């Protein structure tokens, strides 16, 4: 077999190898180079795989030549090749950014560990996306989760440790639930291969163990997704983690968990069963609306920028699950698009907030919270940073011309298609809440006078600005040229949604 055929394996293996290499190197610079190279290669592979799926349909790769369903199978279709591009792309952008960003946020001696952990986290997320095996998915989930706990705990703020600990407990509960659910499925079907499971699940899904498996998986994954009311670990984790980690997690971790949810719901259990026989859609609808309004509302009253946008993430997840609850091609496509569009916009925002934090941090002290009193009048000294956050914010609101509009448009179309006009109102009204919190930033950064006594400082360094603005540019780009996002999402949704065909 040529190298090209092994791309699915290399996708995961390269970042996996980079992590121990980074540890062995014990030098920040070298570790940075190794992991960054791995991330960039992974990005290139992800694009290659996406093209391959685009040209010649789904790809199946047996690990170690053990044929599925006995061996572990890596299986690529529209949906997860799209996810791979998002995850590896974010890593490729966040890693170069980290070098300048963690300078003051993480003690010098543990920099190489930071890169190793980021490499592992990337491995886990890519593995979760690519694998076609239920237990393998759990393993990769654990790899990404464990490395995430470490990454969060590396934040200099002492509360980072508590936040990481809390996330550790909650994440472990979630993972336990998932493995219990997978265990039930294995007991009932005798297979761990997701594709193989599909037909067998159809026979047992009415049984109590089948339903219990579904409940455990739903709750476990919802925890990782941070679907309200299981979101409580998220605000602290995003707030106290190092900036680049916040950005990477916000853009990828919850998104991959959502991918797992979609995979279990639509591929394994099948939407015909879930959405027509079970009260699941109503449940999802209620929880989504709760997230959209409650989290967006709370975001308005936050004083810490990172915390504000963390709550906004919880709200945005509500839109994604809302789209899923429609169980229509438009709705699921809107969700998949929003995964991507929100990831890009939120990643940009967190990277730019990191640039602000870097400016506010003095060398020895812990980074201060980017509160509204500290960022007052910031637009004068950091115009590019503030403008970038505003653009990202516009995408969160769903202003036309930004990526956020595209996914909201499809979401609205899906609601109209279902005849749910009141949901159109709910979507627009909750967007107004987003206007309110984005406006708080604009008001503080552009209209308030800088606090007396703040030292004058300039624009963020280009090492921080360029990666962040790449994402800002992507937010605008995918607001106009939608062929990649909309095209992938709609085809993926067509593969997932069966009940109407």
């Amino acid at each position, binding site marked *: 077999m040529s190298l090209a055929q092994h791309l699915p394996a290399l996708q995961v293996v390269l970042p996996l190898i980079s992590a121990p290499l980074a540890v062995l190197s014990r030098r920040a610079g070298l570790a940075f180079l190794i992991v960054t190279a791995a991330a960039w290669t992974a990005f290139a592979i992800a694009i290659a795989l996406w093209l391959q799926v685009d040209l010649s349909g789904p790809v199946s790769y047996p690990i170690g030549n053990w044929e599925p369903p006995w061996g572990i199978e890596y299986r690529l279709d529209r949906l997860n090749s799209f996810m791979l591009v998002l995850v590896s792309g974010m890593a490729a952008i966040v890693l170069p950014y980290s070098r300048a960003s963690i300078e003051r946020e993480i003690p010098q001696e543990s920099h190489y560990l930071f890169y190793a952990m980021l490499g592992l986290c990337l491995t886990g997320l890519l593995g979760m996306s690519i694998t076609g095996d239920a237990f393998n998915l759990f393993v990769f989930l654990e790899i990404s989760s464990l490395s995430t706990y470490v990454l969060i705990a590396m934040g200099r703020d002492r509360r980072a440790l508590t936040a990481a600990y809390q996330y550790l407990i909650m994440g472990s509960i979630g993972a336990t639930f998932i493995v219990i659910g997978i265990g039930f499925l294995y007991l009932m079907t005798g297979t761990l291969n997701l594709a193989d499971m599909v037909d067998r699940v159809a026979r047992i899904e009415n049984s109590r163990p089948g339903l219990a498996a579904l*409940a455990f998986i739903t709750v476990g994954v919802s925890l990782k997704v941070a679907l309200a009311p299981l979101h409580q670990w998220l605000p602290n984790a995003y707030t106290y983690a190092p900036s680049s980690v916040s950005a990477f997690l916000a853009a990828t971790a919850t998104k991959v968990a959502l991918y797992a949810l979609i995979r279990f719901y639509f591929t394994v259990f099948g939407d015909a069963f879930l959405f027509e*026989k079970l009260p699941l859609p109503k449940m999802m609808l209620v929880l989504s609306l709760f997230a959209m309004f409650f989290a967006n509302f709370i975001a308005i009253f936050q004083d810490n920028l990172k915390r504000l946008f963390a709550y906004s993430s919880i709200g945005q997840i509500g839109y994604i699950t809302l789209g899923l609850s429609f169980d229509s091609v438009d709705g699921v496509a809107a969700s998949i698009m929003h995964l991507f569009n929100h990831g890009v916009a939120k990643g940009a925002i967190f990277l730019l907030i990191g640039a602000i934090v870097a400016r506010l941090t003095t060398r020895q002290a812990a980074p201060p919270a980017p509160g509204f009193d500290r960022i007052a009048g910031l637009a004068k000294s950091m115009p590019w940073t503030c403008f970038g956050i505003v653009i990202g914010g516009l995408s969160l609101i769903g202003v036309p011309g930004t990526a956020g509009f595209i996914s909201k448009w499809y979401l609205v179309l899906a609601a109209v298609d279902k005849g749910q006009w009141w949901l159109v109102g709910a979507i*627009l009204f909750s967007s107004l809440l987003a206007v309110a919190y984005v406006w708080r930033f604009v008001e503080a950064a552009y209209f308030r006078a800088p606090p007396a006594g703040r030292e004058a400082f300039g624009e963020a360094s280009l090492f921080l600005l360029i990666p962040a603005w790449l994402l800002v540019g992507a937010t605008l780009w995918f607001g106009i040229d939608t062929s990649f996002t*909309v095209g992938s999402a709609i085809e993926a949704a067509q593969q997932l949604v069966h009940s109407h065909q």
Partner: protein
Amino acid sequence: MTIAELTPGLALALGSLLVPLLRGRVRSFFLIALPVLGLAHLSVLSPGEHGVVSFLGQRLVTLRVDSWSMVFSWIFMVAALISSIYSLHVRTPLQATAGMAYAGSAIGAVFAGDLMTLFLCWELTAVTSVLLVWAGSGKNAYRAGMRYLIVQIASGMLLFFGALIQLNATGSLAFGHIGLDAPGGWLIFIAFGIKCAFPLLHTWLPDAYPEASEVGAVFLSAFTTKLAVYALARGFAGTDLLIPIGVAMAVFPIFFAVIENDLRRVLAYSLNNQLGFMVVGIGIGTEMALNGTAAHAVTHILYKSLLFMSMGAVLYRVGTVKASELGGLYKSMPVTTVFCIFGAASISGLPLFCGFVSKSMIMSAAGQGGYVLAWGSLMFAAACMFHPDIRVPFSTFFAKDSGKRCEEAPINMLVAMGISAILCVGIGVAPAYLYALLPYSVAYQPYSASHVLAQMQLLVFSGLVFAVLVRNRAYLPDLRAINLDVDWLWRRLGAGFSRVALIVWRSAAASVGDVLSANFNSAASLITRHRLPDGLLIRSWPTGSMSLWVMLMLFGYLLLYYVGV
């Protein structure tokens, strides 16, 4: 897609982004060149639908060139040029940037051939123009701008909803005649109505315009409401309901305008009055009436911006436009005085000035159509509005000498006013050039003996009344006072509503709290407990309570699934 396929608004909007990068003479040159090039661009457009793009599966027409869009885009571009010259003395780039982007989005909206593009430009005009309000110096500017923005965004939202309903019902987003019976028609009607300052929906206009900077008010007076007039004429021509609405718009601002002390607010009210004429024209819907509306929009932009420019010059030099504090300024600002009188003459419809040749078209159309009541009311409104209109130059430049002395307006302001004034007189003397632009072919002769005679009678008698009143000091004195418009009602209602809601919420929360537990804090603090950063729902939870939630969710799902199957 060639350059000619791109909407001319885009060049202005994108060009505006370059303004902050430029300084001094280069910026001045750029600010003049941009609309001049825009005018050149307009002159090479050929009729038809251009700039068709496919976006999200919809066919969007970004450049629909026909007689309607041409007449409005011409005057918008001229207004952009005039306003931009008028703004040249300002050193900071914000206003010119916002103004250019605002003009660009208004022109983009005029060329929009579908509701999606219209919606985009609609919201863009709101966002860009609010910056001009905020550029105002008064302490109320920020709040007034905020209210303005909220109202404008709300208008856009209604338009969006209406467009969505139309898309759902017809599968098309094309922006043609809509009518009230069309799916989503009412929503779109109200969306246009808000921007057009229909009675009771008008409060944002006299609220925000007088708070804008001297340059901002000139930009604002040209685009927002006339864009709404254009949209109404496109979508709702011949809707009978528009006639009473227009009449009300023409009549009720009179009373506010007569007693108002802030002269730019007087102009805002009189702007609202003039819009009434256009709306009546749209309501009548005959070719002549629609021609009259289009013509009146053109002349109105010219003389209204001229008046706002002269008041802006006074504001710039003296620092106030309160009638009670001005007077006798003709000695200091003779040229501005002359221009202001030109503007007042035009707005009053004096023959040989542009207002006459357009307003009389609408009046004639009303007369010929048999709308006697509307015709009479408009006559009445025109006669009454004459007072506030001539009061503006009178109180400022003549009246009792306030003793204030200042310099003449800056040269760029004078040039801008001069262009407007020349156009006002030019159109008044040779209306054929204007008529050639109108949407329908015109067989109308404004300078017939009966027209001129009727209008002169009206004006002479009104003038006589004004003179007698001033002479006998019976005219309402210029008082420092604040007038309450219905926006007071809105604001009070809003505040009152939230207060009532709070009381209801508190009492509801109180009863729930009492029932649940005696340990609950007083119910009044419940809302703050939920809201403040340390509130119940926001503070970090202990890990145990989180796990509790996980268990609850699990049980919930298990139960629901078992019950559901």
